[in-house]
């Protein structure tokens, strides 16, 4: 199978074992959700996969090469707003393209396209403090999808948003992903969110985290929360991690 990303890692901080031999792979253009309770090491896993921290043992590989932000095209949507407050929306979306030395004219075109895609036309010149939390996450998503990434990591990107905005943003992310087709690893603690979004759900246990389950979600999108398959999967996932 066309395996794009392979993860096989063990992570310890001093005598705290965050996870012991977690191993899974992600196919190209797959949308994978990693589901786990808060505090189980999901963010650490995401940072490992982004090459932001190195693992105690094992490796993360993309196309069989160890993950390296300089070599691979990676993108990360953080839980909190990670926009640079001194840059306006347009210049924030351009960050990844700037790092990758994309020629100016081409970068501008791409930025325009991405801003259009997340529906922020007219807000290009606004600074982060002038826009809402949901809009900030849209900018972060535009920035992530702008670089044509090998892997886009999203670490609870909608956790800080209200329920309605969150629902809307989930639809948006799917729409953009279906259009641009990237490999996405989406971290969440929210059962419904994972079922709504993912091709596949990897369930993590509590610390030290191990993989408790790996579910393929085969319902067609857009998924209906009231669909029997949805409810059934939610029950199974809930039973697996202990319903909360």
């Amino acid at each position: 199978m066309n395996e794009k990303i392979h993860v096989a890692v063990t992570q310890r901080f001093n005598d705290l074992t965050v996870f012991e031999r977690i191993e899974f792979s992600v196919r190209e253009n797959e949308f994978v959700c990693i589901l786990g309770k808060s505090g189980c090491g999901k963010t650490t896993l995401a940072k490992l996969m982004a090459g932001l921290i190195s693992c105690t043992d094992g490796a993360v590989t993309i196309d069989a090469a160890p993950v390296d932000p300089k070599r691979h095209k990676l993108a990360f949507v953080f839980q909190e707003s990670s926009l640079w407050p001194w840059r306006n929306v347009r210049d924030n979306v351009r960050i990844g393209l700037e790092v990758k030395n994309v020629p100016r004219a081409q970068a501008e075109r791409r930025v325009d396209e991405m801003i259009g895609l997340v529906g922020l036309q007219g807000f290009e010149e606004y600074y982060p403090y002038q826009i809402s939390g949901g809009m900030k996450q849209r900018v972060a998503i535009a920035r992530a999808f702008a670089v044509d990434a090998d892997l886009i990591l999203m670490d609870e990107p909608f956790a800080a948003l209200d329920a309605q905005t969150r629902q809307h943003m989930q639809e948006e992310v799917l729409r953009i992903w279906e259009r641009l087709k990237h490999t996405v690893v989406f971290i969440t603690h929210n059962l419904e969110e994972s079922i709504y979004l993912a091709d596949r759900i990897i369930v993590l246990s509590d610390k030290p985290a191990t993989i408790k389950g790996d579910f393929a979600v085969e319902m067609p999108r857009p998924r209906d929360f009231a669909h029997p398959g949805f409810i059934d999967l939610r029950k199974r996932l809930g039973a697996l991690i202990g319903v909360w």
Partner: protein
Amino acid sequence: MQSRRGKHVRSEIADLSVRVSSEEPIRARAGGWRLARRARILITNLMVLLAFLVLWEIGADLYRSPFIPAPSDVWRAAVSLALHGDVNDRTLWAHTAQSLMRVLAGFAAAVVTGVPLGLLMGLYPGVYRGSRSLVEPLRFIPPLAWIPIAMVTLTGFTRYAFIIWLGAFFPIFVATLVGVPRIETLHTDVARVHGASRGWILRKVVIPSILPDILGGMRVGLGVGWMCIVAAEMIGGDMIGLGKLIIKYAELMRMAEIVVGMILIGLCGLVMNEILLLVEKRLFRWRWQVQL
């Protein structure tokens, strides 16, 4: 009178909002309020200043001493110094220009040295920890204490610049140093995920993040620099400069001229500070979000 002024300001607001309302009604109204607020602040300041001058005049009249000049004496001294020059035929403008140049030179040297050193020690805390026992005590030695050393080692313009540099350096250095650890790791992570080099992160994340701190440090450093001008000009050989003016007239016991020198130092500092504030507001609109 008061109410008529109020009405005038209000009509100005109305004008302004009418003019721009078709494009940005909310912003225009906010601009109008800001204008009214500014006018109010200006008027209050002028009134405070006036009250101070009146009290000073009354106090000086009651005291009736040749060593306590009244505002009117100071004004006459200022006019005479400006038109006819001092005992060495140096005009007030020449004094001011000289002091300004010295302060600017010392201040510029402090920026050029303080910012890179602060960055270096902020980014490599090991360097700071390793040299702490040298750097920290130096901070507390007053520029005045350096005068004898400056006198035997330096000559001419460098003497002045050195003393002012000493005063302005540490506020700028420290502001940069403490600004670095306050940079959001989230902001640097964004760049790192995309594979940015250290140099890129320094230019595009670190510097913009701490620029507000640096500018704040510059404003403090500038103040201290001006405070050092009298000390610096005490030891310089030239008979020119606002500090020197004060020293010369101190020997003659002419208080009115001394006060003229003091006021001019204050004014120069004020103007430079306002310029820096303006730059700050322009550059860091995003930082002023907390202010209304």
